């Protein structure tokens, strides 16, 4: 039995296998529809979510399994002060696999120390979000056909954006990757996230100007400046509109650029871009379901 609390819990080979399985699910959904019959997934969301929770639940239903859980901490015993460890020990009595989101960093690690069923980290504060990263990787693979030799622009909140941190960690393991980090000074990538870049000698540049780097990009990964990550409301208001992607800004972009966003979007991508074939963020949400199906199968050790 194993747990996935960080994208680094998976080897490059395993990531490639998950992507292959997800692609096979997309092509042959019928083959997979009963593989998790009589299995139960618990979705424990101590923090609200739309896509992650629903995509996990849809993934389990499409595998023929069933789902139980809660969608906010207030509707669980966490509201009465129950510890993460005790909640997990209890849920292990009822479920075969657990996907959990928690506002505190490292909560899934605590869960994995006591769990008797596999734990999947579905986001822990600003720390890790491995299934989003798998979703991003599948999206890039589906849209570009490969995961190597790409110039990847990451734009917006690169300090608190956990999806960005995990994506950097995962993608710098592929050859020929170059990162362009686009953010205001206050929201730059933390030094510990740059460690794999430096160790792997992955080329990267940092800028505050999105327009100047737009023509270079194969992938533009936009992020939201997240209100819930700021202790100070004034800082949030000052930084929230740092980068807004508009059709004008896309004029200098490559024709085969792909724009990703983990969603939810607030106003950082103009809705006028939604119809542009380069915008793939809603397809990305769909790919999220398929890669989670592949991950559930892997952790439950179910083979097609």
């Amino acid at each position, binding site marked *: 039995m194993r747990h996935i609390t960080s994208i680094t819990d998976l080897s490059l080979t395993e990531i490639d296998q998950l992507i292959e399985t997800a692609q096979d699910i997309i092509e042959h959904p019928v083959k997979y529809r009963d593989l998790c019959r009589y299995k139960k997934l618990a979705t424990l969301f101590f923090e609200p979510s739309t896509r992650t929770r629903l995509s996990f639940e849809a993934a389990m239903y499409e595998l023929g399994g069933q789902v139980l859980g809660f969608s906010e901490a207030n509707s669980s015993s966490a509201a009465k002060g129950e510890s993460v460890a005790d909640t997990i020990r209890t849920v292990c009595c009822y479920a075969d696999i657990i996907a959990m989101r928690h506002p*505190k*960093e*490292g*909560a899934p*690690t*605590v869960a994995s120390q006591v769990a008797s069923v596999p734990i999947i980290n579905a986001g822990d504060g600003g720390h890790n979000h491995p299934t989003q990263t798998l979703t991003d990787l599948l999206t890039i693979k589906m849209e570009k056909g490969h995961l190597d030799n790409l110039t990847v622009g990451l734009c917006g909140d690169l300090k608190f954006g956990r999806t960005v941190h995990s994506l950097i960690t995962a993608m710098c393991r592929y050859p020929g990757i170059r990162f362009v980090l686009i953010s205001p000074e206050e929201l730059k990538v933390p030094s510990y996230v740059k460690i794999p870049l430096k160790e792997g000698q992955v080329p990267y540049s940092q800028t505050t100007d999105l327009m100047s780097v737009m023509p270079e990009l194969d992938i533009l990964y936009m992020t939201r400046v997240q209100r819930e990550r700021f202790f100070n409301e004034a800082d949030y208001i000052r930084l929230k509109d740092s980068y807004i992607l508009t059709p004008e800004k896309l004029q200098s972009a490559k024709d085969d650029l792909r724009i990703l966003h983990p969603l939810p979007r607030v106003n950082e991508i103009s809705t006028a871009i939604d119809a542009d074939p380069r915008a793939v963020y809603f397809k990305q949400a769909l790919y999220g379901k398929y890669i989670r199906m592949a991950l559930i199968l892997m952790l439950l050790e179910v083979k097609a």
Partner: protein
Amino acid sequence: MNIDSINNGIVIDHIKAGQAMKIYDFLELDKLDCAVAIIKNATSNKQGKKDIIKIDSQLDVDLNALGYIDPSITINIIVDGVRVKKYHPELPLTITNIIRCKNPRCITSTEQELPHVFKLTNREKDEYRCIYCESRASI
């Protein structure tokens, strides 16, 4: 003073001058009933000045954790008035409940019963990170 003055205990030698109280606090030596001597600014051939701590009792703690505070120190174990062991503390792979995670977003900030565990992530830089949130340790 020399180490012969202790019968059964520990002498922590070659502490960087001025660091003795940090180690005293770290090991919670104030809670011991036995004799504890702190010698500050003793003359040292190697270091110029050094601090020394003498504890007239064996301690049930992992003294290797001291390597995190000051890797230059020497630990001498005294049994029946004789030095039976002398060593430099090695940086331990993990340290538990010795330093606390200061990241307010870490799960340890709300779940008081969790042990504060740090893992050695870079031996050259003496770098430890919280096993939960990966924040860098600071004393």
